[in-house]
């Protein structure tokens, strides 16, 4: 538990909270980008360099841009007059607090029973590449197929309807 960990954790949680609480959707997208960056820094502080840079590339580079595009295409940057929270927001906050209470209780009570190694694992990108085309080659192919299907599906779903109702 170093000062660096507390700083990164505070940035991440603040980004997440701002993303949920801010009214303007463009500000929310910026705040969620900060939260994604904080998670990437947490990956780097866990000596998972490859996962950290993948997180930066995929989430900050692609998902955040996609969210901003969706907000601008749906004119979501106008703040609605009747509030951004649903009428049942109290129930949602209660459910989220209960989930956090249960998970925090479970973590605090059980984390000392898990064997934990302090040594830094020596894993290079070469090892990850060998594992990806070795023992994990079938999941890799399935993910490739899934990404292709998702790309085609997203284009077809968002395409203009030909001669539709309007």
């Amino acid at each position, binding site marked *: 538990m170093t000062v660096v960990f507390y700083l990164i954790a505070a940035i991440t949680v603040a980004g997440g909270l701002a993303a949920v609480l801010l009214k303007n959707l463009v500000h929310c997208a910026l705040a969620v980008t900060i*939260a994604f960056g904080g998670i990437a820094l947490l990956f780097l502080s866990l000596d998972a360099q490859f996962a950290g840079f993948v997180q930066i590339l995929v*989430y900050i580079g692609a998902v955040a841009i996609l969210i901003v595009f969706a907000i601008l295409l*749906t004119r979501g940057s106008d703040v609605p007059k009747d509030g951004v929270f649903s009428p049942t927001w109290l129930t*949602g*906050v209660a459910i989220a607090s209960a989930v956090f209470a249960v998970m925090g209780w479970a973590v605090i009570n059980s984390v000392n029973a898990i064997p934990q190694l302090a040594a830094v694992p020596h894993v290079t990108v070469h090892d*990850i590449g060998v594992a990806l085309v070795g023992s994990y080659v079938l999941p890799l192919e399935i993910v490739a197929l899934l990404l292709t299907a*998702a790309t085609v599906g997203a284009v077809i779903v*968002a395409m203009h309807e030909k001669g539709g109702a309007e």
Partner: protein
Amino acid sequence: MTPLGGYLLVAALMFAIGLAGALVRRNAIMVLIGIELMLNSANLNFIAFWRYGTHPEALTGMMFAIFSIAVAAAEAAVGLGLVIAIYRHTHTTELDKINRMKG
């Protein structure tokens, strides 16, 4: 509190924030943002258990996190495409106004 416990608590807090965002906000894009936050906190758990667990050289947690990031990217693309298609049809992304399945 061990280092692993700290990371797990941060992940639990991020999951709760994402869940609150998905349940509380009225805009469909904000619900997707909340889901992305929840997926990210799950990835943080995978990486934390990989770092502090036994046999990190087996790369199990790392591989799970990488595949999870790939699936989450596909989910974000399809989800935002659906939001754009619904907006084109109903001219709104407020979830409590989208209450008809026949359009």
